[in-house]
């Protein structure tokens, strides 16, 4: 069964909608900037969402029925901001998929929220209140601290009554969600599935922990630091705020509803690496790329573009390019390769969904976005996108996501066949 993309939505540091995301990718806009020194040795750079106002963002979805907008405000006006961003991204995707007009059977609609440990920042912010007087914790805390609150709230707003849950795979969570949703559609469990790359609200303690492992950029000299995927001076990732939503659907359902198909999810693979560490491994990464291409029925020479996981950690970038060489063989230098994380930072659990959206946007727009801060490439054979926009005819693309603990994933996206 063919699985297609019929809707997309995004809120991140460089865009508040998919059209503005498209413009920002073309322009190579960077959402990364300095943040106040937390004083704990944690990261001093981040790609933050600025100027987000939930009420305005809901009002902007004026093509949706008023009842949906009212329901969103009722359900989430007092929810933590990360949930509000997830909901706004999902409203955009729901609208683009035309689910408010050509409706799907509520029991044939699924909802997969990709991510885990999503609300630690929220819990951290409430801790002083708890220390002061536990009785004054908001009653909603018991709902809001759970990742599944995103599932419950979004299902209520959209009236989704089919299968739904959260799935996790560290930084690969987004792709884990897309793959799970594709399986729900392929198995016939649902006709339509919203996949939400959930905004990950890291607490200062967690960010400090990542810095301890040497994974983040800009701890020592933030004024010099950048996110530099594939550059010899790469020094780690920059945390990014972002939420994305993709509507996956069977081709039959999309045709029956008469909606436009944006792209096809042609294939995928997800394999564990039997490895609890944060260490990326070439062999396991290559394996999922090879298997995903086989699953899609395409060969290495068919791939025109790779949206790399490329967080800008030295070990990660090197392992990924070695894996790409192994997976693509003689075609290694053929496809364009770039990293969206150079523009929006590492959106953690949402990254896979954000990057799937970036891939579809570039495929449909016929371009590859710049690799920012790439001055001295770590590899001369790979066709790394330069620091400026390039036209590109993309028929098939890979989008990689790898996570601490050995989560290796790759999806193949294609223009509709």
């Amino acid at each position, binding site marked *: 069964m063919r699985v297609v993309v019929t809707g997309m939505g995004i809120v991140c540091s460089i865009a508040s909608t998919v059209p503005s995301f498209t413009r920002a990718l073309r322009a190579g806009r960077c959402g990364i900037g300095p943040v106040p020194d937390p004083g704990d040795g944690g990261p001093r750079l981040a790609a933050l969402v600025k100027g987000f106002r939930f009420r305005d963002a809901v009002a902007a979805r004026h093509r949706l029925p008023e009842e949906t907008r009212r329901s969103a405000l009722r359900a989430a*006006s*007092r929810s933590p901001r990360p949930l509000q961003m997830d909901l706004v991204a999902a409203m955009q995707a729901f609208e683009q998929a035309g689910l408010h007009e050509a409706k799907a059977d509520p029991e044939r609609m699924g909802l997969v929220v990709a991510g885990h440990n999503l609300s630690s920042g929220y819990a951290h912010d409430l801790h002083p209140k708890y220390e002061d007087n536990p*009785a004054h914790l*908001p009653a*909603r805390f018991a709902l809001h601290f759970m990742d599944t609150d995103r599932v419950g709230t979004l299902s209520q707003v959209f009236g989704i009554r089919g299968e739904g849950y959260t799935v996790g795979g560290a930084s690969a969570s987004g792709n884990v969600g897309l793959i799970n949703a594709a399986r729900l559609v392929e198995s016939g469990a649902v006709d339509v599935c919203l996949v939400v790359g959930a905004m990950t609200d890291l607490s200062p303690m967690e960010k400090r922990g990542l810095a301890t492992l040497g994974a983040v950029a800009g701890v020592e000299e933030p004024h010099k630091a950048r996110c530099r995927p594939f550059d010899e001076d790469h020094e780690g990732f920059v945390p990014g705020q972002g939420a994305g939503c993709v509507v996956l659907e069977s081709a039959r359902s999309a045709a029956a509803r008469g909606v436009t198909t944006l792209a096809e999810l042609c294939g995928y693979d997800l394999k564990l690496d039997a490895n609890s560490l944060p260490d990326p491994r070439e062999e396991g990464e290559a394996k999922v790329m090879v298997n995903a291409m086989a699953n899609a029925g395409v060969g290495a020479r068919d791939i025109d573009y790779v949206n790399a996981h490329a967080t800008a950690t030295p070990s990660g970038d090197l392992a990924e390019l070695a894996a790409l060489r192994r997976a693509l063989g003689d075609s290694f230098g053929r496809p364009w390769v770039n990293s969206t994380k150079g523009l929006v930072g590492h959106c953690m659990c949402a990254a896979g969904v954000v990057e799937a959206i970036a891939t579809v946007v570039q495929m449909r727009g016929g371009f590859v976005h710049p690799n920012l801060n790439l001055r001295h490439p770590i590899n001369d054979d790979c066709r790394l996108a330069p620091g400026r926009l390039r036209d590109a005819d993309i028929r098939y693309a890979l989008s990689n996501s790898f996570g601490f603990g050995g989560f290796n994933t790759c999806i193949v996206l294609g223009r509709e066949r």
Partner: protein
Amino acid sequence: MTDAQIFETVKQNVLKVLPDLRPGDVTTEGTLTDLGANSVDRADVVTMSMEDLGLTVPVSEFQEVHDIRSLVDLLARHA
């Protein structure tokens, strides 16, 4: 702290939790349920009002609350 002050605090929190209401909708005669509050909304009004008033009321005592007047009375006993 007067009952009127406590009611005003409760009323403001009801309006925060249920922003579609008009201020005149909230009276001591009514119940939160009739105003459209669900179980968590009602609990939110309670915790927010306790915080604003600087009070701590044991959770078990809220079982006796059946309308806005009895909520105000309970908070007043602990003030």
